[in-house]
């Protein structure tokens, strides 16, 4: 039976995050949250693997206590067990310290054959968590996985999308997989699973109960990068806006301008 870990993240709706013009800080208060969409594709891939080859799915996330919502959403879709890593000392972590924390916390929940993670998050969007998790799990990696052909004899055979085509690869377990969404569109939970997930137990890991956790390697102290400054993008001066009051004359004017420029 395969032991499968799926890494998920709750993110703020980036369309609604604003920057405070006075302080230059991001305003997240009251901004709705969601489960990172690409994580749901990763979960779907894990559920498909479980259905085809048998296995147990453990979900893991790191975030504030409310990140529990994301775990329940994913449990309803197809997780067997869920782990929430939470606590102030974990805050402000970059991918170096987050990957350390997730791997360290997961060790209490088993030794994993397959790890699924979203290709990137919509908020941080570094796209490098998966590779750093793979490195810390001492796992092989298949990124941009298009389809999973077979898992047997300690190996996974899969097809992945590259820049100019598709490559069939064979990787040894443990293996970390990120997926293209084409064959892994997320499914909706059934009512029973949804209700069960609402009351399911969630294991909570904090800085005090993760065995062997090095506090120097988590949160801000464990991060390699910092963000000393954010600012609004500098916008160029607006172009010439054509506003004659009617679509027809607007377009006529545009066509004239483009013709003058030899653009059409």
């Amino acid at each position, binding site marked *: 039976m395969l032991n499968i870990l799926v890494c998920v993240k709750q993110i703020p709706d980036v369309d609604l995050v604003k920057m405070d013009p006075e302080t230059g800080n991001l305003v997240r208060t009251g901004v709705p949250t969601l489960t990172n969409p690409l994580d749901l594709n990763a979960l779907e891939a894990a559920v498909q693997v479980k259905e085809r080859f048998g296995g147990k799915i453990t979900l893991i996330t790191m975030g504030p206590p409310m990140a529990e919502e994301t775990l329940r959403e994913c449990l309803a879709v197809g997780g067997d067990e869920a782990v929430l890593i939470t606590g102030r000392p974990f805050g402000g972590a970059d991918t*170096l310290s987050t990957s350390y924390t997730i791997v360290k916390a997961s060790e209490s929940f088993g030794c994993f054959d397959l790890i699924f993670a979203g290709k990137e998050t919509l908020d941080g969007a570094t796209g490098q968590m998966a590779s750093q998790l793979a490195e810390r799990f001492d796992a092989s990696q298949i*990124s941009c996985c298009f389809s999973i052909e077979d898992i047997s004899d300690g190996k996974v055979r899969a097809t992945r999308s590259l820049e100019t085509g598709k490559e069939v690869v*064979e990787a040894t377990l443990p293996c970390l997989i990120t997926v293209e969404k084409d064959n892994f569109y997320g499914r909706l939970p059934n009512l029973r699973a949804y209700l069960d997930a609402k009351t399911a137990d969630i294991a909570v890991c904090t800085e005090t109960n993760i065995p062997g956790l090095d506090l120097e390697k988590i949160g801000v102290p464990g991060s390699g990068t910092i*963000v000393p400054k954010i600012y609004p993008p500098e916008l160029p001066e607006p172009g010439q806006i054509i506003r004659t009051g009617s679509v027809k004359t607007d377009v006529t004017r545009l066509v004239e301008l*483009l013709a003058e420029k030899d653009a059409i």
Partner: protein
Amino acid sequence: MQKSDYKNMWVYIEHDGVTAAPVGLELCCELRKLCDRTGDKLFAVIINPLPEAEEKKIIDCGIDGIIAVRGTGYDFLNTDAYANAFTVLSRKYNPSAIFVGGTIFGRDFAPRFAVQLDTGCTSDAMELDWDPETGDIQFIEPAVGGKIMAVITVPELRPQVGTIRPGTFKYAPPGPRPVVERLEEEINFDPAAIRVRPLNFIPDDADPEMDIANADCVVCVGNGLKDSEHLERYRTLARLLGGKIGCTRPLYDRGILPYKLQIGQSGVMVKTKLYFSFGVSGAVNHTAGVDADVFVAVDKNPDAQIFNYCDYGIVGDMDEVCDELIAQLRAREKD
């Protein structure tokens, strides 16, 4: 760790044994400018041999030296041997920074050696700056869906690792330096320890409609599109203009158009004569991927950021404007 013990910047040159991927050359050209300010030397790291003519192209980008790596384990691109090579090299030479092109392979293996070296890694910077006081590179990139620009630094650790998307910087070779050092390194990785093996490669069908990077005209459709039924008119407009259709990320996310047509930093960078955007808000992540001689934007929101990037803008319903454009262009053809 003393930051001052770490000197020089490296660029990884991804190649297939025949040609170097353009992103490596782009990075050398950009980092030449940065190294002129910091006083670092710029080295190209080439794993496995490249033909002399290709090496010359890299030298023309103004590098101070080449680190040529040979050994076992590099017969095909794999994260195990390549990450190991950089870890070994970095421990030997202590570079201040290592840059890797943000190809699928580069994004796979660079974050791995950053973990092995226990250092900070950034991705997708659009600009590079340098703070002489701290000696840190400033990786400047759009964040939170393009609403803000974030300056990211690696304040205490070295090397500073960055992956940069292809097409972010211009290939403008400043010419060769008078002296170009050459360091030969042998680093062997046990081929049996490589954990991912390619079995078969199936090239994508050569569909000309998917090849938009250098199309003369691109009609880009954004999240303003109501649904896929409304898409056909934009295809018609693109055909009339002898161009191709593209999209922004939300349309790919909505499953309306394929990833290969997604224009922007995390998709295709396009260089075109005429660019139309319909229903595109103008997030930096998207506009960073557009290099157009003439840029026309159409959107119903007069405050949309896209109007800051256009030459000509029309505020209005995207479908109506498109239909009218088609009608007038057809009438013009008849004249």
